[in-house]
């Protein structure tokens, strides 16, 4: 059984790359409207097809950075040219992967030097949360489009500064909530907000339970010396390798994992929450600054009425895995990034959709569940071109559709599915959950807090 196809077609520039990307980005910028999350067709006059490679750099060559590389490296018209990481083990590793795919990349310790010398069109940022703002703002001000991993930042102020920099520079800033570009989630969102299959939504629930994380080590002889660690803000190699456990560097489990799912609720409900009550702590690994459990109770107030929600992230048990549930008077929807989890449960008295007759069904906990297969649960013809394409996209590596959206937006073909202006609301939701844990009392979330 062979692995993924290996052939890669190199796009042939028809016009100069910089000229094309400059004009296309302007066209794309005009498509980004407040509150708009759906991909939009290119406006009249926007160039179509690949007119030149997008020259890309990677900041952060760790496991998430390499995941992004592997997902992006075969996208037509994307050419990686540089890697920056403060740890040579990671930068060399990422550069070797790029070389393997025919993308020779210059290696930098300092991302600022990379921005100054590499003449990039875009960067992917996959570094610890605490440097996202600094690196993103520097890249935007260097005239470079940015795809930045979530959590945007580990302070609301830093996240707000990122949105402001994107607005000031006119450059694109996509945040790595990849579910927003996932065809299965986009299909589910269209069922909820397009067809209204859930009726009035009343409750939501989500969880991400995972086993206790292991301490990350590092190869013998690869240590950064104390001076280098201090220069980059780390007290030790252990801190660098296990940054998610430290408040200085990370946003906690609610930022690492919960943010993805809170973003789904904000996206589907189309409003941020109005309150949060939360608990959290470190029961299993009390030596960690960030805890191993966070549990939050939220309220959203969309125009249809209040929505009560509960979310938990546990780093001590994997029971139940990770998924989101939205419950309404017309039915419930259960979905996960795990492609095997996608179900619709219709309430008995709710309107029956015509597509239900042809949809696949399974029994889930004694209930009749409709599987959320894109081609089967839609108004259009079962084997429509749109459905076939969406199903094919759903089989790609999880991050690839979101990266494709970013690069297509640079070309002016679509709008970003997760612009920083919208991801900011999710960052506030996650970071204020941490505040609620510390306060041990319910916090009201004013609408003004979600305005970047």
């Amino acid at each position, binding site marked *: 059984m062979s692995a993924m196809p290996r052939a890669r077609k190199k796009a042939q520039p028809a016009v100069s790359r910089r000229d094309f990307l400059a004009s296309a980005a302007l066209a794309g910028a005009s498509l980004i409207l407040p509150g708009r999350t759906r991909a939009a067709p290119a406006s009249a006059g926007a160039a179509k097809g690949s007119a030149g490679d997008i020259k890309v750099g990677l900041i952060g060559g760790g496991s998430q950075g390499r995941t992004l590389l592997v997902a992006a490296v075969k996208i037509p018209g994307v050419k990686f040219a540089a890697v920056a990481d403060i740890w040579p083990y990671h930068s060399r590793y990422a550069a*070797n992967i790029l070389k393997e795919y025919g993308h020779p990349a210059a290696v930098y310790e300092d991302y600022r030097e990379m921005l100054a010398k590499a003449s990039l069109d875009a960067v992917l940022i996959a570094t610890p949360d605490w440097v996202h703002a600094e690196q993103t703002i520097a890249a935007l001000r260097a005239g470079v489009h940015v795809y930045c991993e979530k959590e945007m930042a580990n302070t609301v102020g830093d996240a707000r500064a990122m949105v402001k920099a994107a607005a000031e520079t006119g450059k694109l800033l996509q945040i790595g909530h990849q579910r927003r570009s996932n065809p299965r989630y986009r299909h589910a969102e269209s069922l909820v907000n397009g067809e209204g299959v859930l009726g009035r939504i009343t409750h939501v629930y989500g969880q991400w339970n995972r086993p206790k994380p292991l301490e990350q080590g590092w190869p013998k002889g690869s240590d950064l010396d104390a001076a280098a660690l201090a220069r980059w803000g780390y007290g030790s190699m252990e801190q660098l390798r296990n940054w998610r456990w430290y408040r200085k560097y990370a946003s906690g489990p609610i930022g690492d994992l919960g943010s993805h799912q809170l973003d789904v609720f904000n996206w589907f409900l189309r409003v941020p929450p109005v309150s949060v009550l939360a608990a959290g702590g470190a029961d*299993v690994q009390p030596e960690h600054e960030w805890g191993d459990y966070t549990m939050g109770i939220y309220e959203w107030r969309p125009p249809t009425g209040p929505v009560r929600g509960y979310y938990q992230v546990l780093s001590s048990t*994997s029971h139940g895995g990770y998924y989101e549930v939205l419950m309404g008077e017309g039915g419930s929807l259960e979905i996960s990034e795990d492609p095997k989890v996608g179900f619709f449960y219709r309430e008995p008295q709710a309107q029956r959709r015509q597509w239900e007759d042809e949809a696949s069904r399974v029994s889930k906990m004694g209930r009749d569940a409709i599987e959320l297969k894109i081609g089967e649960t839609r108004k259009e013809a079962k084997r429509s071109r749109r459905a076939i394409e969406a199903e094919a996209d759903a089989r790609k590596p999880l991050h690839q559709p979101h990266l494709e959206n970013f690069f297509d937006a640079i070309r002016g073909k679509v709008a970003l599915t997760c612009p920083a202006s919208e991801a900011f609301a999710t960052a506030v939701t996650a970071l204020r959950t941490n505040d609620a844990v510390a306060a041990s009392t319910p916090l009201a979330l004013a609408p003004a807090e979600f305005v970047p």
Partner: protein
Amino acid sequence: MKALLALLLLLAGPGFAAPAKAKPAKPTVSATTTGDRGVSASAETPRSSAADDRVPLDLKLPKPAFIGTPRNVPAGTTVEKVSGKLRPPFRVPPGTVNLAAGLPAGAGGSEPLVGEAKLITDGDKEATDGSYVEFGRGLKSVTIDLGANGELAAILVWHYHGDPRVYHDVVVQVADDPDFITNVRTLYNNDADNTAGLGVGRDREYFETYEGRLIDAKLVKARYVKLWSNGSTADEMNRYTEVEVYGRPVK
């Protein structure tokens, strides 16, 4: 709703106090056996030890890096279902040792993307950076020269067990010469469509776990061991964390 009630109770009472620290997990030591089928050692494989003399093979296993049954079994593959049970003991002749421990491993000229080939036999099986060597895309192989013929009881391979992935075209061969021309015997082959060109394999694909894959070597005598792979469900690259070759020197 149970979780909601639990949270409310937590907030209402002194439940914020953290319980005593749990003890860290220790590396597991376990005896293992094969769950594999279709091992294709040749019929003339020597059997120099009586089965009733055999003793359980002691293996030092790494820390489990992920727990639970992987959900995303790739469609259209031969991936075997994860049982969730530990491997039962695998019995080997007395005096069986890891003949590959610390020996140099060759990679046929492939330059690693990260790590060094010596990591394959250094005894470190953990699923963390620095424990594995990664080679590039496509069909890759590593070869271990045992230095002399051994009577091989079992070969264990950990490609990478940090996430639930399946390696493609896993083929394990032994031979009498480093070029694999003389007396080549295939002990394991899950290349169902002969992508690797080493013959159609009838063994199953499998999820990597901390237990590694145990391949029954049927007491075959050989000096050279070669392992092939062709990318995984995670990406197209080929990681090797550890290979152990259990057997006895042939006198």
